[in-house]
């Protein structure tokens, strides 16, 4: 049977890839199996006893997927999930293969898949989800995705084609996601944040998609939470933020240690920090609500949550504390910087910028990040990554005194350690593959686990 052959070939590829130490085998097995049976993902996810949830958006996919996985696993469910950021259709396929038995059948209850924005139509078609979550749409990797508008249209078409009875769960606070949802034939469930205390008054430089879809006027914001996400309306009354059915209120931010919030009657305390994680929590909570999961139970699971690779991962090294924070685009970087500087009191940094395919080969976006926040507050900043020299220029024009740029991750770490006193905490804010590089170096030195074990 073709399906069984595909599963066996894929599984063998994954085992070889891990054995050879070339990484976690997070996507290659998917390529191999799909070459043998192109419908393999459709067949495997069809075996799930409960169904699938797809999560897309620029930022927060991995954390939201992990939150939902933890909720289902706590209920004794077997969950298939494409971890480690392998979010193209091949990564989803590889994840399903890992849980497939020798007979080629998938033995699991739930599929929780994070899906790259551009891959959503194909994922919807093959996986036939019960819930599709859209977290946000920020400017990201223009070299690969093209313009935001194209991505938005792709997502809209994909959401129109989710199966009958399936539910779209959308971020009401994101104007571009709002525009998508208000155009859908079926009413989505909206989630959002309602807390004027944590809001900014003004849009940051990284903001985009700020005009009314009907009349083209610039949107008016009464609150800005993150990037262009907030409470908005068209000054001519043509368009406004939908009222969220599931909202986070009374938010308590504690640096990178935790974020607390009320969702309805439930108090949720998440042991990772930042307002962006409040969005991930309320998105997961909203999806759970659709499925009738008890709120108090979800809060308990979220309280015991552990972060994914490089997402506020904390480790000790030589008497110092390291916090690794993935920061991959302007909206994300601004938030991790704000959390680090304003709330965690961070003073020692490695900032890592790579320009590989997974990071985006165009690094011009660093000029939309407010590195000015570091001026006069950061004591040590080491620019790192393949484009460390670009970061050094950016920091100079932000008025931030930086160490010399280091393109080798080992040298960046050595330089940081040489100027970070024992007992101090250093923050490592990096793009995706820059984080992989730094982390690989930490693994090599025995300070961190390989990422496919996390």
């Amino acid at each position, binding site marked *: 049977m073709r399906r069984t052959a595909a599963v066996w070939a894929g599984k063998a590829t994954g085992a070889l890839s891990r054995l050879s130490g070339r990484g976690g085998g997070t996507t290659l097995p998917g390529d191999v199996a799909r070459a043998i049976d192109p419908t393999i993902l459709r067949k495997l996810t069809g075996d799930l006893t409960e169904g699938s949830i797809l999560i897309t958006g620029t930022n927060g996919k991995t954390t939201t997927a992990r939150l939902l996985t933890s909720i289902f696993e706590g209920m004794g469910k077997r969950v298939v999930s494409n971890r480690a950021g392998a979010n193209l259709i091949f990564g989803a396929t590889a994840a399903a293969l890992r849980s497939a038995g020798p007979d080629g059948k998938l033995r699991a209850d739930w599929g929780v898949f994070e899906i790259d924005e551009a891959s959503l139509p194909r994922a919807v078609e093959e996986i036939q989800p019960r819930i599709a979550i859209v977290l946000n749409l920020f*400017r990201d990797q*223009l*070299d690969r995705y*093209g*313009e*935001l*508008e194209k991505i938005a249209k792709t997502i809209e078409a994909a959401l129109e084609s989710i199966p009958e009875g399936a539910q779209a769960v959308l971020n009401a606070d994101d104007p571009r996601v709002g525009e998508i949802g208000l155009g859908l034939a079926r009413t989505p469930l909206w989630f959002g944040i309602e807390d004027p205390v944590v809001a900014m008054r003004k849009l940051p*430089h990284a903001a*985009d998609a*700020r*005009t009314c879809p009907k009349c*083209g006027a*610039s949107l008016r914001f009464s609150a800005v939470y993150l990037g262009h996400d907030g409470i908005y309306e068209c000054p001519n009354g043509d368009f406004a933020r939908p009222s969220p059915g599931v909202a986070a209120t009374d938010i308590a931010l504690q640096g990178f240690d935790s974020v607390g919030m009320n969702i309805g009657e439930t108090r949720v305390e998440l042991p990772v920090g930042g307002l962006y994680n409040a969005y991930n929590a309320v998105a997961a909570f909203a999806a759970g609500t659709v499925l009738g999961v008890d709120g108090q139970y979800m809060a308990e699971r979220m309280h015991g949550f552990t972060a994914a690779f490089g997402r506020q991962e904390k480790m000790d090294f030589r008497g110092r504390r390291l916090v690794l924070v993935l920061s991959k685009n302007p909206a994300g970087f601004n938030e991790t910087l704000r959390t680090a500087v304003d709330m965690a009191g961070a003073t020692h940094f490695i900032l890592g910028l790579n320009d590989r395919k997974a990071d985006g*080969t*165009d*690094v*011009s*976006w*660093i*000029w*939309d990040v407010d590195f000015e926040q570091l001026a006069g507050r950061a004591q040590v900043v080491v620019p790192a990554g393949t*484009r460390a*020299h*670009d970061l*050094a*220029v*950016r920091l*100079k*024009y932000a008025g931030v005194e930086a160490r010399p*740029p280091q393109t080798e991750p080992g040298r960046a770490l050595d330089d940081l350690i040489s100027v970070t006193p024992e007992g101090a905490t250093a923050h490592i804010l990096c793009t995706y593959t820059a984080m992989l590089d730094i982390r690989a170096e930490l693994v090599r030195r025995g300070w961190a686990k390989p990422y496919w074990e996390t």
Partner: protein
Amino acid sequence: MTKKKNRFTVGWLYPDLMNIYGDRGNILTLLKRAEWRGLDARAIDLGRGAAHGMEDVDVFFFGGGQDREQALVYDDLIEIKQEPLEAAVANGSVVLAVCGGYQLLGHYYQTAEGERFPGIGLIDVRTEAGKKRFIGDVVVDTTLEDLKPTTLVGFENHSGRTFLGAGARALGRVRVGSGNNGGDGTEGCVQGGVVGTYLHGSLLPKNPHLADYLIRRALSRRGMAELAPLDDSIELAAHAKILERAQPRAGER
């Protein structure tokens, strides 16, 4: 020196809508480099409906936008900005236009279906839609006088093909990348005080010599021709890194 004379003004055309490729880097570079020379530097936002103060602008910046945003600025550009912009340029103001802004300053943009959208014709260039998008690092040997180093580096991401008329000369010859149209080896254009280009990345931070060229040219109309030298070692190290890294792309020259 009078207060007004010491002032340096950057006019940012549609900062909220035409700002897709980190164009703020160009603004920051112009402002900081003027400030470091003791000038009182400021940027004014020239969004939709705004034309106030355009006569005082030393350097205009016009960046790129998405199709949706480009459509939104189109009427305003022709109805509100064209006249004062032409007047300022005639008076010696300088313009840097990147990508979408570059196209809109030319004669027209012609879509794949043959429909023509007229630009404001400030520069003698025309643009036609192309199929393949040109994306990647670019290195240009510039023909601008007295520029050291003689290279410009940046990143391009465009599908429009721009062709120069007799009134415009190229900003440079492409060494790596596609440039104006991927065919004739030219990149960007220079016509009087207007510089158009497809290079972002942002352009000016890694090309401080071009930033100073624009500042100097704008100030010269006010009789201030000299700019004190700055330590550009960080900027030029980043510039050199691109020269070293940029490789001709597969399938191109």
